[in-house]
């Protein structure tokens, strides 16, 4: 029997039972639509989490002096002087996986402006610091490389500092402040970042050229840290390895020596977040898959009823020459037609729901092409899987029994 004839028969059976078919399809429609919508929500939140993390400088790499042993006593990183400007220059010159680097020297002290004072931290860095930390200026400008060279007494301050020492609301840019009695000219204000994941106020900072901080405030020659950003999040682990290699060479460490520095990336943080959102997506898809499964069972149920109800018809078809395989195909095609039509409608409904969620609920969504392909494929498979057994049952009927069935 030709496939076209079978298609015609199946199509007719569906058209003759419009309401029932539609209700059966509803299970599949809702299943597919929810898979698509759930995946869109999952993908959307994953993307938004990713954006948030990169806003924190997700590809940042921190290099600290450390793991040094003096006379058997492990030393705290901050008291060590093993990280120097030449390390920074070596990293800058040799690394291939870093886009920005900045030396960091830090100290604490009192910020004073007129009668106001506020305890804060000062960070001595270079202009690339802003790119590494992914932070912009709210007003004014960043100091330049030339100002770093000349150890100029200029500073960029965070909003918390502004709030506490410029309490009368005047524009801080162009004003003078003192940090540990050293006068600095405020040339810019950082945009507000709020607290970081660890509860630190990221706006409570004073940023100045590292040369200035080294010479005028801390009177040191070494660096506390070097911070860099890898060219991409994916390359961050490789960049860590590369930097370690450069530093080992730089510090003339032999194979037996342990590192006298530590290099860390934000990798752990990222992997935590992505595994969280991965979990979320899996959870959503699991829930949606259950509704798809229920839709499939709906098809199976209705196909069973259909086979039972049309037993006499099956008998007749067999009597006039329908083979078992013809009957099997007829019911299988019917099931597949129902599930595929349901699938198409489900995709449309899912896309509609996604638009609705995005527009009216303001949730970030992102429809992944693969979700459409997968749910559609699952639909077709559902049709075959759940249609097979009832169809098989129909084809195995004895024509005599079927003809006499009332």
């Amino acid at each position, binding site marked *: *029997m*030709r496939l076209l*004839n079978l298609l015609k*028969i199946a199509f*007719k059976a569906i058209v*003759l039972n419009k309401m029932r078919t539609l209700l059966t399809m509803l299970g599949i429609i809702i299943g597919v639509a929810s898979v698509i919508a759930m995946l869109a929500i999952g993908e959307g939140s994953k993307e938004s989490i990713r954006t948030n993390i990169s806003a924190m400088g997700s590809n940042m790499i921190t290099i600290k002096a450390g793991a040094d042993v003096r006379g058997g006593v492990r030393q705290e990183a901050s008291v060590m002087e093993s990280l120097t400007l030449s390390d920074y220059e070596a990293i800058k010159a040799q690394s291939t996986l870093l886009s920005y680097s900045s030396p960091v020297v830090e100290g604490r002290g009192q910020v004073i402006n007129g009668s106001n004072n506020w305890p804060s931290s000062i960070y001595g860095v270079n202009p690339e610091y802003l790119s590494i930390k992914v932070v912009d200026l709210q007003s004014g400008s960043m100091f330049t490389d030339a100002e770093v060279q000349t150890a100029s007494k200029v500073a960029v301050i965070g909003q918390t500092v502004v709030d506490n020492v410029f309490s009368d609301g005047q524009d801080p840019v162009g004003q003078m402040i003192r940090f540990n009695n050293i006068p600095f000219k405020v040339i810019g204000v950082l945009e507000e970042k709020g607290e970081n994941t660890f509860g630190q106020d990221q706006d409570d900072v004073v940023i100045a050229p590292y040369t200035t901080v080294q010479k005028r405030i801390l009177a040191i020659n070494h660096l506390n840290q070097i911070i860099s950003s890898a060219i991409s999040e994916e390359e961050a682990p490789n960049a860590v390895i590369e930097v370690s290699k450069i530093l080992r060479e730089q510090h003339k460490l032999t194979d037996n020596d342990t590192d006298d520095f530590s290099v860390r990336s934000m990798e752990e943080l990222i992997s935590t977040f992505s595994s969280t959102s991965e979990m979320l997506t899996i959870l959503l898809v699991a829930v949606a898959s259950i509704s798809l499964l229920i839709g499939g069972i709906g098809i199976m149920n209705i196909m069973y009823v259909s086979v039972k109800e049309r037993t*006499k*018809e099956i*008998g*007749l*078809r*067999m*009597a*006039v*020459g*329908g*083979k*078992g*395989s*013809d009957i099997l195909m007829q019911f299988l095609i019917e099931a597949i037609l129902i599930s595929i039509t349901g699938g198409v409608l489900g995709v449309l409904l899912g896309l509609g729901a996604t638009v609705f969620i995005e527009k009216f609920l303001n949730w970030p969504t992102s429809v992944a092409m693969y979700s459409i392909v997968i749910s559609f494929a699952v639909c077709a498979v559902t049709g075959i899987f759940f249609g097979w057994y009832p169809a098989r049952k129909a084809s195995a009927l004895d*024509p*005599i029994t079927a*003809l006499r069935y009332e």
Partner: protein
Amino acid sequence: MSKAIIKIEDLKREFVMGTETVHALKGISFDIKEGEFVTIMGSSGSGKSTMLNILGCLDQPTSGTYDIDGVGVKDLSRNELATIRNEKIGFIFQSYNLLARTSALENVELPLLYNSNVSTEERRKRAIEALEKVGLGDRLQHTPSQLSGGQQQRVAIARSLVNNPVMILADEATGNLDTRTSYEIMSLFQELNKQGITITFVTHEPDIATFSSRTIVLKDGEIMQDYKNHTIQSAANELAKLPKQDH
């Protein structure tokens, strides 16, 4: 003489019911020749239905031979039996067995759907011809619910004719019809038989047998009588004798 379409020799059919074996047919032999109009009669339990199932290739004998149009049926597979039913037999049932909500034309086309040698155009053409033959040329698009019982049975007859079978097998084809309509149907059968179509009619109504050319009477799984009918009644005449309907 004309050739034998059906050849049955020492045909037995046994059913095993639990520990008992029921002998439904106990060694039956007869031939049906081309152009014959045979009625197979018998009361219930006579083996009539079993005979019908075997004649219709819906069932197979336990022993003995059954040839239809030169093909031995005994050892055919399910699929081969389906092909025989499709190409050599036209079925007519007591309850018409038309597909509901499906036009007369599509109902008649049904057997040809299962024959991949027949194209869509030919299928349609032959279905229209068959419906015209039974006098329903103007009812092609009517669904069973829009047709009377007699008309529905005519559609079923057209369906049995459409695949040009070697034999039409009717199972109590007038059982659901009133006297007038059943005479109409019988006269249609007689007409078709005159055109050379072989008909086997299974029934328990003795008056139907008077319209056929030969009668086989079964009892307890054996042939009790097998006689030629020398005075065949014309169903058309009987119809004319019936009192006129009031309206």
